[in-house]
């Protein structure tokens, strides 16, 4: 899908709920071709919800706001139509799909994009070799991309597998939900390098992350801080450095248990945390523990 024209994903005033809980409370964000945006925030801030809502995961209700891709109303599209329009979501916890290989799934998607009802044997074979080549680029064994999607893969292998599929599908805008969790430094570097090459070719990236670590490799043009379902600060890469030094404390209510994000995330849940916490003692020790992830 890579082309020379510029594309823009525009999120305006987005409110979304899961059950009775309003998680997104007015998110504004714009991602264009070739740009890398990082959205950072503590556990429970709505980061993953933002990714899911933009991609259309069942279980969320959009109560206000809009999401458009090049002016097209994304929220009125089924998830697969969003993907066909050029969106991609690299998932934080990629789902195991027994009996279905990446080649089968991606060949279906690519065939449809090419205007065919179903993939020919040749398209299936081409998808398979594309996957193998991209797997090699991020250090994932070829046999792993041949097996059923994400089945019997480690956390790191699943993340690399997401990058592999991203590279094969070549979307216009990719949302990376905690792409770094579960990856060791070498794998992170390999995945980030591949994504960086894609951004140079025009991919727009919305990288949702918890740690600044990934941003050393996925150099963002803009950094946004999300707290309680709102973007509370935006800036250049220097904002990530400030977060590295100070954590999210400056953005959080002073009373440790005053906000949902604080009490759910465990941040500052002991009275002493405000004084003793430093960047060296990462307050977000478990990137897998975003409790709102489970709401969907």
């Amino acid at each position, binding site marked *: 899908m890579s082309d020379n024209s510029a594309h823009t994903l525009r999120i305006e005033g987005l409110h979304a709920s899961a059950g009775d809980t309003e998680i997104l409370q007015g998110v504004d964000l714009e991602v264009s071709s070739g740009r890398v945006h990082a959205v950072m925030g503590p556990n429970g801030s709505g980061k993953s919800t933002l990714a899911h809502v933009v991609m259309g995961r069942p279980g969320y209700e959009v109560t206000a706001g809009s999401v458009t891709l090049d002016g097209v109303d994304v929220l009125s599209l*089924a998830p697969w139509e969003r993907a066909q329009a050029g969106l991609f979501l690299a998932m934080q916890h990629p*789902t195991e*799909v027994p009996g279905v290989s990446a080649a089968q*799934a991606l060949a279906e998607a690519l065939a*449809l994009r090419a205007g065919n009802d179903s993939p020919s044997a040749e398209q299936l074979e081409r998808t398979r070799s594309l996957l193998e080549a991209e797997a090699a680029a991020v250090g994932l064994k070829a046999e792993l991309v041949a097996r059923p999607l994400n089945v019997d893969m480690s956390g790191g292998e699943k993340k690399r597998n997401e990058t592999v599929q991203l590279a094969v599908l070549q979307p216009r805008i990719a949302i990376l939900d905690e792409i770094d969790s579960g990856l060791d430094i070498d794998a992170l570097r390999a995945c980030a390098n591949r994504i960086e090459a894609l951004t140079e070719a025009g991919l727009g990236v919305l990288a949702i992350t918890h740690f600044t670590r990934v941003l050393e490799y996925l150099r963002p043009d803009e950094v946004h801080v999300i707290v309680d379902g709102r973007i509370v600060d935006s800036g250049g890469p220097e904002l990530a450095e400030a977060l590295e030094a100070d954590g999210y404390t400056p953005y959080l209510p002073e009373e440790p248990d005053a906000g949902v994000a604080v009490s759910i995330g465990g941040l500052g849940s002991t009275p002493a945390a405000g004084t003793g916490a430093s960047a060296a003692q990462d307050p977000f020790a478990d990137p897998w523990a975003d409790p709102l992830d489970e709401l969907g």
Partner: protein
Amino acid sequence: MFSPDLVDALGGSDALAKRRRVAAERAVAAGQPSFTEEVWRYTPIDDLDPAQYAFAAPGGTAGPVGLMSGVDDSAAAVVHIANGAVVDVSVRADGVRVDVLGSGADDLIGTVAPEGPDVFGDWNLALASAPVAVSIDPKAVLTAPVVVHVHTDVEGLAWFPRLVVMAGRTSQATVIEHHTGGNTPALICPLTELSVGDGAHLGHVTVQELGDTAWQIANLCADTGRDANLRIGHVAMGGDYARARIGIDMTGRGGHSEIDAVYFGRGTSTLDFRTFQTHVAPHTTSDLLFKGAVDDYARAVYTGLIRIEADASNVVADQTNRNLKLSPNAWAESVPNLEIENSDVQCSHASSIGPVDADQRFYLESRGVPTDVAEALVVRGFFDEVLDALPSEQISASVRQRIDELVSDADFTAAL
């Protein structure tokens, strides 16, 4: 349900005739089963009206190839049975014998199931008009399957196919039973006995593709010898009511058994499975995997029992049943059970009933795969593991293709 006098016209040895009469009397005394009995729970057995069917053995011609395309070409032996009569027997390899009524099958009937296991089993012994016995010589290794085709296309016919498989010591063979039928009502009550000798490896596959007005009440009874290995595959695609009761008695120390079943219910069919993994001897292992889908208004019932007898120590037994509901009007029930009288065992069971997994569908959709294609992929993927486990690659391939066709035609939206 039937008259015991029917026994007199069937022929065969005097000894068999005597056993037939005893079985018929037992069946008459038992009467007709009711869904209030646990083993008939969830079934439409009360709808059975034997007066709608006539017992006879008119014979006929072979049925359609169906899911067996190409299998006969290389088979070690091919038997055709139609409408109560043996139509053709062709043995093409060494190491296998096929016997029919009056020519050696008589004494083998009842080797594993001398009576029962239910009233239809007793009627089968009494009224089996075309029994067939397949004997694999000790040590014989058959590289191609023995195929038994069972076809029914006479309207209103009731009959009782019986197959006895004797796998001699350390032999290796696969037997495939293929049940086909026309689009006419019929009552077919097969009983298959599998005797797996010491150290023998036997595969047995039932491929059921009856017409959608047929009733099938089938029994399969197996017994495994010392260090024997039995792999049972069961494919159920048709029938108005199709029941299969599969019981394995693991009587020889060190034996292993597997049952892998694939079913796909459509229309208003009811598919009913009762399994019994009975561990009699120590150091025996058994695995069971039943995976099925119900679409339209179809129903599926699975109830299974792992029974570990007091002397059966060091047993490992597993039982898993998974059901996909592809339509809001489809229905499935799954009842796994354990009955353990020895503490030195490892048993597990699991079951599930649900629609196409929403997370799996969303994952595929997020790659750009349309909803209907994503669901078809997930359903095909669901069956993958059990298709791989069937003890015949040819059958696995043809059933996989059939499921592909079924899911690509289907519309699963709003299945809850």
